């Protein structure tokens, strides 16, 4: 696809915008007054790297515009076979749907960056029954006679067929989306142009412009972009984060984050015996067996539940300086899934080691993550690798590392769309391949020979801390009994350029002069085999698009355009051997044109806030702190001073009721499926998997708890309740909103503030009016009116569906 005609203009437009953006990001009034020269200097110092990272495409001027006839909102369109590369002169007629029926429609006000083509666009058709079809977009090119208008070749066929196929039933409305922005909708006849579908309210004819649309004069609302960024790259806005972003901009902030470590130390939870009653290394009853036995109960809560891990995670998200690492690590947890409560008497220490691995590689290299996770003994337990032997091979881990952690089930193009053969998807592997891969992962077991080989091993406790080691299982391996590891040949993936498509059988594993030599040979062979196998998986063409798409889904948007996936996948591949590959990938995701921009208008853009995000985003927004005072036996009590007025992070009971029990996804398929399609739509919406009528009201009730109440701290008196679950409690601070409420009897100052700070400025006039009416129902003269008005408004904005969706 040639874009030469538009390129220069794009860059100029981009520069204008970028200057504006960076100025605003600088946020310093005095600099604004300086001359042009100074401006350009800043532009280069602050934003040079942003620019180099294709941010040029920030030149989003307005939404794309689909071209209609001159005097109606009917699409201008032409049969693709008859198109001469120019704007058609005749008016449109009807077209017949079908998988080989192609038409060209026309769009303006889109400026593509290099490599951005048909897969950056989506075209949807809504029929009069409300069904929406996603039509396959096959090509886009500028017109011969006006470069500012593009012809888009569309197949009149739903590419995923979730709602069936459109019929020749008359008019439909076409919409085009690009980078999370939507066009106007134009009428389009399927079978017949029957006028049976009214256009959108206020729709006007959009004939092709005779000159390039002006791009210079529009306001770039950085507030909306910054707010979205704080939700994508962090756990929502906080005053400090916002200030930092204003000061140094997104890219420098990201760079800064790469060197941050957890703000709160990992919980100190030594390994315990498998049996909690174990006298030496468990949590046995205290001497004298008091009832209740607080010491034993505390020990069990700490070691044999996820309590400390959950509180730590919430505190990190609420207060941690390492927001980006936490956010990416949390995303990786939902790809490399384990469940902390998967085993009876499961220990927090087991899971902690797994979390550390996620943290360690969040800004590292994906291949290294694959390696360390494969040998992690807790993962080995979760997916049965610790019990997989040559005689009793277990396919669980080999299956999931392929299906969920690296390449997925179907062969993919670099942009993440499935490759097709005669219209069908091509499986990446079959059962025979699973059997082959399984052989590689046999014989590994927990490291339990005691220190120093297994430094964390303790008596009576399963060592799920140290990496697994190969347990050959026989002292003198022989050809007839080589032990637990399968030393026969393996046939792995054989894509073009595949490293190690086969691993030959071990030739020296059973021929050593002594058994010991053979054991060492087998270990070396097994280790080498796993490394070769992980290389074979990692370099599969699927890995980059598969992993990139999952990360985009977790951080930015549920249903990214293939072009977005491709841009990130290319960065993933270009940094394949880099120890900081993930840093490049994360930057590519967060600074992409589809992630950035003042506002996103496409119907399918964004993602439902998962419960953890909903809770942390909302709490951070309003200066989360310890609970306020409570009254116990008519005495007012405050949280202990040790709390320093901070939340204790005991918030998992709240998110659990919203179907997200932190660290405890119900299965390796995560809290929700990345492929979940919202029933009744064609939109992929993973988080909708756990939103249903029950959790919908509970989301609202969570907001109610925080706005009108708090999560009380557990009051401790004397020897009663010495191990409170909530030593500090959690509450929010609405002072800022309250001050705005007090300042303006109409409530509009406050509403505009909430609009900007919570909804990125996207609140409709009607929405504002509803909130205002509810606010004004509280008379100014009434006691506590500012407080109550603030609560009223915050509750209504936070419970809106608009706030439920991050976009």
């Amino acid at each position, binding site marked *: 696809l040639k874009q030469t005609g538009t390129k220069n203009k794009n860059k100029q437009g981009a520069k204008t915008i970028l200057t504006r953006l960076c100025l605003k990001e600088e946020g310093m009034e005095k600099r604004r007054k300086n001359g042009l020269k100074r401006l350009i200097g800043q532009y280069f110092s602050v934003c040079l790297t942003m620019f180099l990272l294709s941010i040029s495409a920030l030149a989003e001027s307005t939404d794309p515009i689909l071209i209609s006839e001159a005097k109606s909102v009917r699409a201008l369109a032409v049969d693709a076979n008859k198109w001469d590369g120019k704007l058609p002169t005749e008016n449109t007629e009807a077209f017949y749907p079908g998988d080989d029926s192609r038409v060209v429609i026309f769009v303006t006000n889109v400026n593509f960056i290099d490599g951005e083509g048909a897969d950056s666009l989506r075209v949807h058709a809504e029929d009069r029954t409300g069904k929406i079809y996603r039509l396959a977009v096959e090509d886009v090119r500028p017109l011969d006679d006006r470069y500012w208008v593009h012809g888009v070749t569309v197949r009149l066929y739903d590419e995923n067929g979730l709602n069936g196929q459109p019929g020749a039933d008359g008019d439909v409305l076409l919409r085009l989306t690009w980078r999370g922005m939507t066009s106007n909708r134009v009428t389009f006849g399927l079978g017949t142009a029957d006028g049976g579908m009214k256009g959108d309210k206020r729709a006007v004819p959009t004939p092709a412009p005779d000159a390039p649309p002006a791009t210079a004069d529009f306001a770039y609302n950085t507030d909306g972009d910054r707010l979205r960024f704080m939700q994508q790259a962090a756990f929502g806005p906080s005053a400090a984060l916002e200030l930092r972003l204003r000061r140094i901009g997104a890219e420098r902030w990201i760079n800064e984050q790469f060197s941050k470590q957890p703000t709160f130390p990992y919980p100190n939870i030594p390994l315990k015996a498998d049996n909690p009653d174990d006298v030496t290394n468990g949590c046995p009853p205290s001497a004298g067996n008091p009832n209740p036995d607080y010491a034993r109960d505390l020990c069990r809560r700490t070691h044999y539940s996820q309590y400390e891990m959950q509180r730590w995670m919430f505190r990190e998200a609420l207060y941690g300086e390492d927001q980006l690492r936490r956010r990416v690590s949390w995303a990786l947890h939902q790809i490399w899934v384990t469940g902390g409560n998967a085993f009876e008497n499961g220990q927090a220490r087991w899971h902690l080691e797994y979390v550390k691995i996620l943290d360690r590689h969040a800004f590292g290299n994906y291949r290294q993550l694959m390696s360390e996770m494969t040998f992690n003994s807790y993962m080995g337990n979760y997916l049965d690798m610790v019990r997989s032997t040559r005689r009793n091979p277990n396919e669980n881990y080999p299956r999931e590392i392929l299906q969920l952690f690296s390449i997925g089930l179907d062969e993919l193009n670099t942009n993440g769309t499935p490759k097709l053969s005669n219209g069908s998807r091509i499986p990446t592997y079959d059962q025979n391949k699973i059997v082959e891969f399984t052989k590689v992962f046999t014989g590994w077991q927990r490291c339990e020979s005691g220190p120093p080989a297994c430094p964390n091993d303790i008596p009576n406790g399963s060592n799920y801390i140290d990496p697994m080691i190969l347990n050959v299982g026989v002292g003198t391996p022989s050809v007839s009994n080589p032990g637990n590891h399968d030393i026969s040949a393996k046939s792995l993936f054989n894509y073009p350029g595949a490293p190690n498509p086969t691993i030959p059988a071990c030739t020296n594993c059973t021929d050593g002069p002594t058994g010991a030599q053979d054991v060492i040979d087998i270990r070396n062979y097994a280790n080498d085999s796993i490394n070769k196998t992980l290389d074979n998986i990692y370099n599969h063409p699927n890995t980059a698009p598969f992993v990139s798409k999952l990360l985009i889904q977790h951080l930015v948007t549920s249903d990214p355009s293939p072009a977005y996936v491709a841009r990130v996948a290319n960065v993933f591949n270009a940094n394949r051997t880099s120890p900081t590959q993930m840093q490049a990938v994360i930057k590519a995701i967060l600074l992409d044109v589809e992630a950035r921009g003042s506002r996103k208008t496409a119907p399918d*853009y964004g993602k439902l806030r998962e419960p953890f995000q909903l809770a942390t985003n909302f709490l951070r927004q309003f200066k989360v702190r310890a609970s306020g005072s409570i009254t116990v036996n008519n005495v007012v009590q405050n949280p202990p001073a040790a709390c320093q007025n901070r939340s204790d992070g005991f918030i998992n009971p709240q998110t659990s009721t919203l179907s997200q029990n932190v660290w405890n996804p119900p299965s390796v398929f995560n809290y929700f499926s990345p492929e979940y399609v919202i029933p009744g739509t064609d939109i992929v919406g993973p988080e*909708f998997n756990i939103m*249903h009528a029950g959790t919908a*009201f509970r989301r609202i009730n969570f907001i109610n708890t925080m706005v009108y109440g708090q999560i009380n701290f557990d009051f401790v008196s004397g020897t009663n309740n010495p191990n409170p679950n909530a030593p500090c409690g959690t509450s929010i601070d609405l002072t800022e909103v309250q001050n705005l409420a007090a300042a303006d009897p109409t409530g509009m100052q406050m509403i505009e503030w909430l609009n900007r700070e919570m909804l990125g400025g996207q609140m409709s006039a009607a929405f504002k009016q*509803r909130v205002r*009416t*509810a606010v004004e*129902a509280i008379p100014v003269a009434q006691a506590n009116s500012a407080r109550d008005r603030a609560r009223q408004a915050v509750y209504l904005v936070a419970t*809106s569906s608009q706030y439920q*969706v991050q976009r």
Partner: protein
Amino acid sequence: LKSGFWNLELQKVMKHNRREFLVKSSCALSMAALASQAQHFGMMSALAHGADKSARSDAAAPTDYRALVCIFLDGGNDSNNMIVPKHSDANISNYAAYTAVRGPAGLALSQAQLLGINVPRLGNLQYGLHWNMGTMVGRTDIPDGNGSLGGVRNAGIHDLWAAGKLAVVTNVGTLVRPMLRAEYQNNSVTKPYQLYSHSDQQFQMQSSQSASRSYTGWGGRIADFRNAPDNPGALVPMITSITGAQLFTNGQSTRGLAINDAGTALNNIFVLNGYGNDATSIARRTALNEIRALETGTGTPEMIKAASTITEQANQASLAFAVQNEVTVAFPNTDIGRQLKQVARVIKKRTDLNVKRQIFFCRIGGYDTHSGQVPTVTNGQNGLLLRLSQAMRAFYDEMTAQSIQNGVTMFTLSDFGRTFDPAIATDGNGVGSDHAWGSHMLVVGGAVNGGNFYGSLRKDGTGNYFPTLVEGGPDDTDGGGSPRGRWIPTTSVEQYASVLARWYGVTDANELNQVFPNLGNFSAVQSQLGFLPTT
């Protein structure tokens, strides 16, 4: 009424919009009248149920009420210990064959204790239900206070066999197409995707599709087609889950309603906290409803609209369930007892809810008995089957009390069966069994042609409608030196489900093929699956 807010709505004169009208109506009108109002406004199908995939609007809505109640036995039920041969007939696997394998490790049930059921299809040979699935009268080994009983003693499901209300569908499981042992072993017939994996097998039992992952459940697909014609003007979706959003309940356009078990009264399930009778509360609630109306309206981005639509579903349900309907039969206060009790409450509200066809989904865990399967009379699988039987019986009796027993059919699903070979536990927890494949299903209801086994013969026409209880035998997947008895299903979940669906009302061949796209793969198999009438 529970919420003071609703009462107040009646008293205060406020700006009218459609939702407020509904709110007031719910107090002033009967629920049936409300339903007709809602229908008049054309709201229900759009709001409570998403866009309908309506098929045929020409057929009139049914006049009778029917419901399917699925009980999913989570973890893989060892049905080898639920249905056991009691006879000693030498021509078919008998009790000796059973105890030969399961006896030495202590996994076999005692022959004398098995609750006899005679099977006409197998020449009236006697089989036995697990000894905890009968009456609790005289069972001194299970005292009143035992948690498994949940405070209730009833007859269990055993005597429903003789009454012809309990059928057993034998050796059901996931299948892409029929398969013989040799075909399993030489890989010549496609196996179900991820056989023996809990999550995948659960998905497949719920989707009825075994070749790969599927994103719709067979309950959801039935509702995609049947909701509009069968339940016009309904106040709730066709499907209700008592156990969260589940694959079974999702269709292309169907989104099941998820409700709590009977521990929460119907009118307490969908309650927004924090509303009082004060003007501030009323203004807030009005704005909440109006903002949601804005957000379900045209022009709202789909992603936001979807969240709003789900919230609106909760709102509709809060109106539909504004009044509790208590049942008259005592249900055991156990997990499955509370789930089925809640189903019974909803069914009792069927007229108010304006529904003619409903599907319910319950799920009960603990069946993954690798060890500790038979430790005591009321623990392990012994306890699970006791609680299952007691709860199913209470439900059946309640349906009878509601005079609707002929319209309600209860059936089981499970991930898979378990190895016939006992699993010798090394962890000190006692004997159990491991993941396997085909398992027996229970079907209970007034319409059931009970008192018999149903199922298919093997693909080649051999077999006895019951797996041959021999390790390495003709029904075992396993070969090699130590086969463990994993039965290759002779009836696919899709066949089993299709019988339930036909009775429910999916009679149109085109609909049936769309709900069960793989059914054609089994047409060649001789089938004796008439456990329900077809109309």
